[in-house]
């Protein structure tokens, strides 16, 4: 291909890309796309996948201690779903050209990020309820609009994730409801968990809009559909209603509905803490990374054995064919 022809092809690709975005259509893996679009998506989708995988840990810690067999089964199924969601998302990210191994290595090497929320400790059974209700609730708020993300594979992965996640938030709500209507000790446990997880779950939507440099571009590319503050406000509104059904309270005296903006407002959030946890200084950052690294390293001989076996079988089949 001559240089001029190549340039023309890229121009045509760019034109198509811009048209597709303008028409709110979808970009598919082999389409031309701006390098920044590819990079930004790879970062976002792989971070999302890493969050699912690291997010297994805090809840998996309670599988062996779940207080009833039904809850044990539900929790095991939920943590398993998270592994599945991680896999769906890695698949989507791989279509952008980065293999999963590379993404896993980046995670283990501390080069990639995952959602800060998983660096908080899960101290009681009620935390399992609060995670389902608040953390998964916030995640769903974030994810539903992503089903329409401009990148086809990401949107399709999110459709699957959202379908499956609908049970996650409900099971969390039910755990809290049981506790709230249980013994005084259980009730106290439930309120304590809501108190601890409320602010971190609000911070899951990301920094305030004024302080979110990537958001604008992401919205222009139809990846993000609503701003951080918009989604956060919507989430607060839902929680205000749901917490009443639980008979618990949210630890925020400043929640109010602003008639003028028609939006829910909440009290100040500690963004310094957010930055600290993001910078790796949360209570569990080191622990989560260590566990991930350990699983990866301990599993290396198994993965290698499976590859070796496959190669030997393939060789044997080839020899038989030749004979």
């Amino acid at each position, binding site marked *: 291909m001559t240089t001029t022809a190549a340039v023309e092809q890229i121009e045509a690709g760019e034109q198509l890309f811009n048209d597709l975005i303008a028409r709110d259509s979808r970009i598919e893996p082999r389409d031309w796309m701006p390098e920044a679009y590819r990079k930004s998506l790879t970062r976002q989708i792989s971070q999302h996948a890493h969050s699912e*995988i690291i997010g*297994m*840990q805090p809840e*998996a810690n309670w*599988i*062996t*201690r*779940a*207080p*009833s*067999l*039904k*809850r*044990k*089964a539900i929790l*095991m*199924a939920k*943590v*398993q779903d998270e*592994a*599945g969601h*991680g*896999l769906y998302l*890695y698949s989507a990210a791989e279509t952008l050209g980065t293999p999963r191994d590379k993404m896993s290595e980046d995670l283990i090497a501390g080069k990639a990020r995952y959602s800060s929320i998983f660096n908080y400790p899960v101290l009681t*059974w009620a935390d399992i309820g609060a995670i389902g209700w608040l953390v998964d609730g916030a995640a769903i708020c974030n994810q539903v609009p992503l*089903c329409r993300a401009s990148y086809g594979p990401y949107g399709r992965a999110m*459709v*699957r994730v*959202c*379908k*499956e996640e609908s049970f996650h938030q409900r099971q969390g709500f039910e*755990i809290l409801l*049981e*506790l709230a209507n*249980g*013994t005084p*000790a*259980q009730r106290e446990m439930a309120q304590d968990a809501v108190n601890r997880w409320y602010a971190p779950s609000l911070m899951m939507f990301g920094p305030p809009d004024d302080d979110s440099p990537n958001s604008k571009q992401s919205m222009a590319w139809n990846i993000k559909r609503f701003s951080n503050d918009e989604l956060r406000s919507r989430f607060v509104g839902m929680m205000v209603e749901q917490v009443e059904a639980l008979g618990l309270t949210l630890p925020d005296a400043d929640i109010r509905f602003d008639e003028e903006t028609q939006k829910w407002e909440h009290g100040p959030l500690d963004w310094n803490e957010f930055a600290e946890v993001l910078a790796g200084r949360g209570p569990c950052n080191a622990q989560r990374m260590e*566990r991930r690294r*350990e*699983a990866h390293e*301990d*599993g*290396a*001989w*198994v*993965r*290698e*054995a*499976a*590859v*070796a*076996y496959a190669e*030997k079988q393939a060789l044997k089949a080839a020899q038989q064919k030749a004979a």
Partner: protein
Amino acid sequence: MSESSASATRITPGNALRPEDIAASEATPTPDVAEYALWLGDDSLILAQRLGWWISRAPELEEDVALANIGLDLIGHARSFLTYAGHASGRTEDDLAYFRREPEFRSAHLFEQPNGDFARTIARQFVVSHYQWELYSRLMHSSDATLAGIAAKAVKEVDYHRDHGAQWILRLALGTDESRRRMEAGLKLTWPYVGELFTDSAPIDAAGDAAVRPSALRTPFDEAIGAVLAEAGLEVPQVPQAVGGGRAGRHSEHLGYLLAEMQVLAREHPGASW
């Protein structure tokens, strides 16, 4: 979000005998059948508890999902058997799981063994799934309709566990030198506890045609695992058989720790509902 019938994401709860159905049923086992149901329920419960540890620690993410599926099947079987057993004494599955003391458990020692590395877990799972398949494929013809019903669902699930175990036995045994060494070691560590699974005892006689006689399973078990081990180029380990006693409430040292962890929260809040 399309709900078209051609979707590859169509989801349904399916249709099968669930622990909740057994809880709602009036069927009550005789004390002897209840004792037998405890054997079966405890075996699956203890092993599910062991497998639960693996989730988030498996050698590859796909295997996290696979081991969780096996664990979920086993919890399902445990809940069904324990729910049914409890009908004889007015206790729920959770009363039995969380509020019995160690000597009241009926699990065999094999189920209580530590996970060890992946090879050891696979060795244990391989033995268990073949044992359970031989068992359930006969128990589905039990004179006790509830046990037969639970076994009829479980046998299909356990069939898949057998396959999962065999696939990994082949890969680990024939993969690398390292994996072969570990697979051999895992089998050797597992083998002392195999004999107990096939030991008859008085409760089996008492349960009559409701139960499957463990000793009758040994020959088909040996044949089935022998075929896989031969394909993998592995020998049946020649190791002395440990004295069991799980069916009479005499357990391995491992069970105490496992129960302490499993029961801790429920026991902090006696009478609470979750």
